[in-house]
């Protein structure tokens, strides 16, 4: 289309927009405030819990909870566990028990270490299909999408779900976490594959590059619980959330 044709079509559409017959706008404020009060009473993750109550996910959550009891391992030895990932079968995730040396890093939001973008653009910039969690209605679109790539040795896509209170990061490289005491780390399963659950309360997280080296610029304190697992295409997933372990695993199992 020529520039003139584009301009004419724009004018035509603006005219259509002005002539368009919308239904009368209802008053929304009282309903919004009522919903806020209701959610406040239910707690921050009530909405997602409601969604997880869908039959398929409920079954998954129950199954995973049972599996978690069987597979939970307390890491009784508070020593460096460089080989822990191999033990868990996660090739791009390492965790280490023990105090973090140096000053405590800050809690960083994704905007501090990644760039705000759209799902579409993020998809165009990474060489893997971005996976989304699903509920009974299908894929759940994120409230915000961040891309960590330019100049980075650890490209990643971070999907932020504000209302449901979780962030889902996916990367071809990996993650390193350190903290303690050892009981905060548990071996669990996501879809029958090994995964690591880190209890809430504070661990320090790094991205790792393709060679496994730690990246320093995004070193941060993570206060929420974290679930780490690996999917196909050598992708590593990281879910930071206030959900319970069973709920987080059910959510993780819906990611595809």
């Amino acid at each position: 289309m020529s520039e003139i044709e584009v301009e004419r079509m724009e004018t035509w559409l603006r005219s259509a927009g002005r002539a368009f017959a919308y239904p009368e706008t209802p008053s929304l404020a009282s309903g919004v405030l009522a919903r806020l009060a209701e959610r406040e009473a239910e707690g921050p993750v009530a909405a997602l819990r409601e969604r997880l109550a869908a039959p398929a996910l409920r079954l998954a959550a129950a199954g995973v909870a049972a599996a978690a009891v069987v597979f939970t391992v307390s890491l009784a030895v508070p020593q460096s566990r460089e080989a822990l990932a191999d033990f868990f079968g996660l090739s791009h995730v390492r965790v280490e028990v023990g105090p973090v040396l140096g000053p405590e890093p800050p809690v960083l939001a994704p905007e501090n270490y990644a760039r705000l973008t759209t799902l579409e653009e993020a998809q165009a910039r990474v060489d893997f299909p971005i996976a989304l969690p699903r509920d009974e209605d299908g894929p759940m679109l994120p409230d915000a999408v961040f891309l960590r790539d330019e100049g980075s040795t650890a490209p990643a896509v971070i999907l932020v779900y504000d209302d449901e209170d979780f962030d889902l990061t996916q990367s071809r490289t990996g993650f390193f976490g350190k903290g303690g005491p050892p009981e905060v780390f548990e071996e669990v399963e996501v879809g029958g594959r090994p995964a690591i659950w880190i209890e809430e309360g504070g661990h320090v997280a790094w991205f790792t590059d393709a060679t496994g080296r730690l990246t320093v610029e995004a070193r941060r304190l993570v206060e929420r619980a974290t679930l780490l697992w690996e999917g196909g295409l050598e992708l590593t997933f990281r879910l930071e959330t206030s959900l319970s372990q069973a709920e987080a695993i059910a959510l993780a199992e819906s990611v595809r």
Partner: protein
Amino acid sequence: MYTGRGDLSAEGGPPLDEQAVALRAQRGDTEAFGLLVRAHEEAAFRAAYLIVRDADEAKDVAQEAFVRAYRSLGRFQAGRPFRPWLLRIVTNQAINNRRSAKRRTAAGERLERESSGITASPEADVVAGEQAARIWEAMAGLSADDQRLLYLRYFLDASEAEAAEAIGRPVGTVKSRSHRALKRLRAIIEERYPDLANAFGGRLAAEAER
């Protein structure tokens, strides 16, 4: 003409500073947030309606979007306009809902039900209103992202900068994507809506004569 930019005032008082009200809301002042809702409810409802194509569902989507906005206020950057940020949340929520609705209801049934409940706005002449509805119908053939962009730009009167803020992309990208979306819309109209293609062609001819 609808501009989509609501006034912020408390019970008929003087207009309030949106940034100041947003800051109060960020601190948990739900009354201040109520002012933001009232100021932007029309834009939110209309954005939702354009995408979900059902008035009741649009109301639900807009309300839910405001709830999400309230919970995300910590992410809202002071000094930035509230409307584009809100429209991003609304359109995301609406697209999510529409995908769900498609699984439950045939789109044709929805369109038929909606078209029977609409009354033309006073300033719209009947022919233009009918044509606008047909254009809206044709736009349903575009991808969700294309629709969102075109609704923002041409139905909700968002500037390029506001649209860029709402979709989280640079202004240059908004321009190029709008151009491509218009091209795709034109192809849809030419293929499936000969009446619109003729109307647009006639308009072009009339403009050429002038």
